């Protein structure tokens, strides 16, 4: 029966490892934490695979990822603040001279600004935005993964987007003032 479960896991859950890692990356502070969270979530999903009775395996998995991220956050933190209120340490993008695109510097600058702006969002806004814009989850699915009513999803999304637009405008202005790159 181990083989059946392994085969089922490979077919249903493994394809969503990227999604698991991406969400973990945006919910944790360091790449190593994200890897650990994603790995632990996958192992938990494997152990609980019998409980998955069909439907959207990705949503099911992302719920587990989220739980792992918040549990590990509480373990690593003494102060008891909810994880993600501080900006996650995410890799900045330095312009790369070896980059093949002609407009490398400009693209790197834009991506870095976007990256930093998303990282600076409060945790609950950030996770909602990531689930919507990077994973393409519906409001219903986000509501299921995060465990809040759809109305709350909508308002968090609106506020996340509002902050992002503001932050991008501000950073762009800063970039111009600083002479740009």
């Amino acid at each position, binding site marked *: 029966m181990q083989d059946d479960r392994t085969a089922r896991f490979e077919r249903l859950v493994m394809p969503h490892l990227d999604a698991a890692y991406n969400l973990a990356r945006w919910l944790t502070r360091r790449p190593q934490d994200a890897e650990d969270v994603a790995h632990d979530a*996958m192992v938990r999903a494997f152990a609980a695979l019998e409980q998955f009775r069909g439907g959207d395996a990705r949503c099911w998995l992302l719920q587990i990822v989220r739980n792992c991220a918040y549990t590990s956050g509480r373990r690593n933190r003494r102060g008891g603040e909810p994880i993600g209120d501080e900006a996650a340490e995410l890799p900045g993008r330095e312009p790369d001279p070896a980059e093949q695109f002609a407009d490398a510097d400009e693209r790197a600058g834009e991506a870095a600004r976007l990256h930093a702006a998303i990282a600076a969002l409060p945790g609950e806004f950030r996770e909602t935005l990531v689930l919507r814009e990077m994973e393409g989850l*519906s409001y219903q699915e986000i509501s299921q993964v995060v465990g809040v009513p759809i109305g709350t999803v909508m308002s968090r999304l609106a506020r996340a987007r509002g902050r992002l637009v503001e932050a991008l405008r501000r950073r762009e202005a800063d970039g111009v003032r600083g002479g740009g790159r």
Partner: protein
Amino acid sequence: MNCQETEPLLGAYADGELDLIRSLDVERHVEECAACAAAAESVRTVRRAIASSDVYAAAPPRLVERVRESVGLQKPVVRRPSRRLWSMAMAAAVSLFALGVGWQMVAERSAARTAFAHAVVAAHVRSMMTDHLIDVASSDRHTVKPWFAGRLNFSPEVKDLAGRGFPLIGGRVDYVDDHPAAALSYRAGAHTVALFEWPLGGGTSGVTGAWTDRGYHVRCWTVDRMQFCATSDAQEEALRSFVEAFGSMTAAPATTNQSP
């Protein structure tokens, strides 16, 4: 509807989450109200910015290996292309270190490549959801290939693979990763294989690799300054066969039977 009623619904409207009736009401208001139109557009701007950047982090190969080991999965044979890419990435990382640039660039290029594969899958899934797989329906490449003249500024490679088990269904024009592309549809048993093609601009080397994204397999390769991306929800073996068939077939189908 007025602005006060519309404003809280703009996000859901831009996300396609409103029921038809409310969506039409919002649309009517947005047509007349510049402020609300701008607010809806800013939602799309955020979406485009995120979709076109490399902020999506794909699982690094060492994480994939670690997970597979933990759940008892064998190393899959068909992962060979990815492993080759991985050792190429290692070699690149070593030389990048020598330049003092660092490991992160390799990881981020990997993320960019995964986002590319995702864009290919998204284009295919969109076409199936809107029931818009083909605009020219023909299994004859002599009908499909000239159809693209005047619709694309290049002439795509259209091959007859019926002899290899992949009959041509037709074609359409699509837009993938900021490229106007020819999208050919082939049948693979009960599934469809979508083949996207576009010419590589000067300076870009294109993308080569194999991925699985949300249940769809993707294979990308370049030949003669053309980018090819094939995707399908058929078995990975079937997609591999398709790619081999396409690669080995010259434009004119052989009259003798070829062994697969």
